[in-house]
């Protein structure tokens, strides 16, 4: 089965990178090589395969393949940026571990097993909180993340187990299905750290490097969201098209997150927190998507999930490039950044287009579709306006960039430079070339990931087709058609 090489490579690479963490340069090299091989293995996955291992089915889908390919590509870019910016050594290992567990979770038709795999992936992310020189603060941030991951996993497992058996003699069907549905959706909300479950996610930006924030708060939770969406679509939606109070709760959580997280991102004073809250705000759309029961929500939510993980990774890449170029992430110290580095301006504009989208883009249409399914009349217009809220914090970043720079700057040059190379000292010369091109190389990487985000948002790479595909295990079978609400 073509998924097995991917799992084997990613798991072995994770172990190797973690085992070598005492030698940071080697661990980073192994992690980067592992990510490249993982990308190749993801590209080699053939959709539509099915295998029974240990009494449980494992199946591949086009969506899973695309998710893994996009995340692996983003992972290579982020790991390179992390290496250039001096980010802590565990970042590639955490990316590999998250990819491995996401691949497993997305290939398991049984939600009870998939939830366990997605939860294990969340635990690997805790390594990025171990802050050198501030171990206790890092441990505090980390244990709160573990708490959120385990609470979410336990809630989702209990919900999945509750209604995944013959329930012919169940007396109070609507209530049981409604509670199970709410529990699973809340579990996904907790994993994303959306408001009001955001305390741990907000603090994560205190300790984790920017390149790892989307891995922990977007990639892993997105895999759980895809599992949850398939579970809802197969088990809840066909039986219970109307779950009023439960949907109201989720809609409330989604709206509160979109509005408040956008505002929070707007008022932050450093890039990492802007990034953290921006991920939170976009995750609110996924929570709204979970509230939209029915087959009409299936494709838009999955399109948005793909656009979301790539766009947030691209924004993280831009933040890392900013830090690598200007030696700071504090917005007060970044005045005039746009005057100094035009490629980073282009990258940010592409990130804005990729994350918000343009009319006609797949991601734009997906968000409009989700909102249209949930609201009607003037409320639809208000929600669509709220979804444009991220423009506020992006505009603030651009305005800071065009202000007059503070006196004196240690910023790296954005143009590539080629210092004299001494062939008798090849290693020293290579290090010099890398060092003097830090600004140029990180800006280029940020540009590439931003372009990938625009492509994904526009629906290239077969995003709409992959998102419209059936869940694992349903190939060859007709998808369950729930009664229309």
């Amino acid at each position, binding site marked *: 089965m073509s998924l097995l090489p991917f799992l084997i490579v990613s798991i072995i690479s994770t172990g190797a990178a973690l085992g070598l963490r005492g030698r940071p340069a080697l661990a980073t090299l192994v992690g980067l090589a592992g990510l490249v091989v993982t990308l190749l293995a993801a590209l080699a996955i053939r959709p539509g395969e099915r295998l029974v291992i240990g009494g449980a089915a494992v199946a591949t889908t086009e969506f899973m393949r695309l998710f893994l390919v996009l995340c692996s590509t983003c992972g290579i870019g982020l790991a390179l940026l992390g290496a250039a910016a001096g980010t*802590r050594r565990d970042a590639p290992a955490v990316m590999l571990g998250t990819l491995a567990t996401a691949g497993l979770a997305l290939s398991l038709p049984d939600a009870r*097993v998939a939830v366990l795999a997605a939860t294990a992936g969340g635990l690997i992310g805790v390594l990025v909180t171990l802050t050198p020189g501030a171990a206790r*603060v890092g441990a505090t941030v980390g244990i709160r993340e*573990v708490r959120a991951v385990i609470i979410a996993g336990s809630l989702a*497992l209990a919900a999945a*187990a*509750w209604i995944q058996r013959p329930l012919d003699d169940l007396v109070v069907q609507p209530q049981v299905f409604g509670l199970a549905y709410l529990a699973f959706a809340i579990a996904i909300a907790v994993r994303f750290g959306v408001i009001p479950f955001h305390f741990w996610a907000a603090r994560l930006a205190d300790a984790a490097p*920017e390149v790892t924030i989307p891995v922990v708060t977007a990639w892993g939770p997105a895999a759980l969201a895809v599992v949850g969406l398939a579970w809802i679509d197969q088990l809840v939606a066909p039986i219970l098209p109307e779950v009023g109070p439960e949907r109201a709760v989720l809609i409330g959580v989604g709206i509160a997150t979109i509005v408040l997280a956008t505002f929070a991102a707007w008022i932050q004073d450093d890039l990492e927190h802007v990034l953290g809250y921006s991920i939170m705000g976009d995750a609110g759309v996924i929570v709204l998507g979970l509230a939209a029961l029915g087959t009409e929500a299936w494709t838009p939510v999955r399109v948005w999930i793909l656009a979301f993980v790539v766009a947030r990774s691209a924004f993280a890449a831009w933040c890392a490039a900013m830090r690598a170029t200007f030696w700071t992430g504090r917005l007060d110290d970044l005045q005039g950044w746009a005057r100094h580095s035009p490629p980073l301006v282009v990258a940010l504009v592409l990130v804005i287009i990729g994350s918000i989208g343009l009319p006609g883009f797949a991601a734009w249409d997906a968000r409009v579709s989700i909102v249209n399914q949930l609201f009607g009349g003037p409320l639809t217009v208000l929600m669509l306006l709220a979804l444009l809220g991220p423009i506020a914090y992006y505009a603030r970043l651009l305005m800071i960039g065009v202000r007059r720079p503070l006196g004196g700057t240690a910023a790296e040059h954005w143009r590539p430079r080629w210092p004299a190379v001494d062939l008798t000292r090849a290693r020293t010369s290579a290090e010099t070339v890398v060092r003097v091109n830090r600004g140029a190389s990180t800006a280029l990487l940020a540009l590439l990931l931003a372009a990938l985000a625009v492509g994904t948002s526009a629906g290239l790479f077969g995003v709409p087709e992959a998102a419209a595909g059936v869940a694992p295990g349903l190939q060859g079978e007709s998808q369950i058609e729930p009664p229309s609400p």
Partner: protein
Amino acid sequence: MNPAIGAVAVGVLVGAVIAVSVRDGRIAVVGLLTMLVFSPIVTDPIGTPLALAARLAGGVLAAYLLWIAVRGGGMTSGSRIGWPAEALLALGAFVVGLGTHGLGATALGPVEAQAAGFALAALCVVPVATGRDVLRIGIGLFVLLQAALLVRVGLDGNPSELEQLVTAGLIAALGGSVAALAYAARSDGPGGFDLASEPRPRLRRPQDARRDAPRPAEAALITDR
């Protein structure tokens, strides 16, 4: 109710009560190990040898990783109401679990599993919600995860071998995560496993990017591990 499975379920509860009650980190880990070793046996029929071996290996590995973090000593805050009160709480929840087997429909698993799951869920609330040190919160999370796994067995019956394998990996990963965090907290000056005090000034992020590439603090940390 099967007396043999009931006895194993009691073993699970004893381990969990010890883990959440005591103040000595090492004894807490021993209690946790007891819970993790007995939990996979609360099934009817008992799982396949491969599944059982995977779960036992995962549990022992998790406990060993935690042991590495606590073997040098270190106290957790433990229960403020004492082990008898915790045991009574668990007993009450156990009875509730017995009385609600299936949660509204016919269950496929043993009643003891759901009862033990309910008892563990009741035990984990206080450590998870109000724990003020890494080890206590971590132990509470182990108990919570085990509660969900037992309720799942009680409702849906025996998990497949693959599910047991993934579960073992999850338990080992949780052990590794909590151990790494506990070790990090304990190695950061006096204060043992305590969380950083709050309110506190926001952590000034270390400069990830700086001209002086090697950072002494991180280099020192590497040699520790």
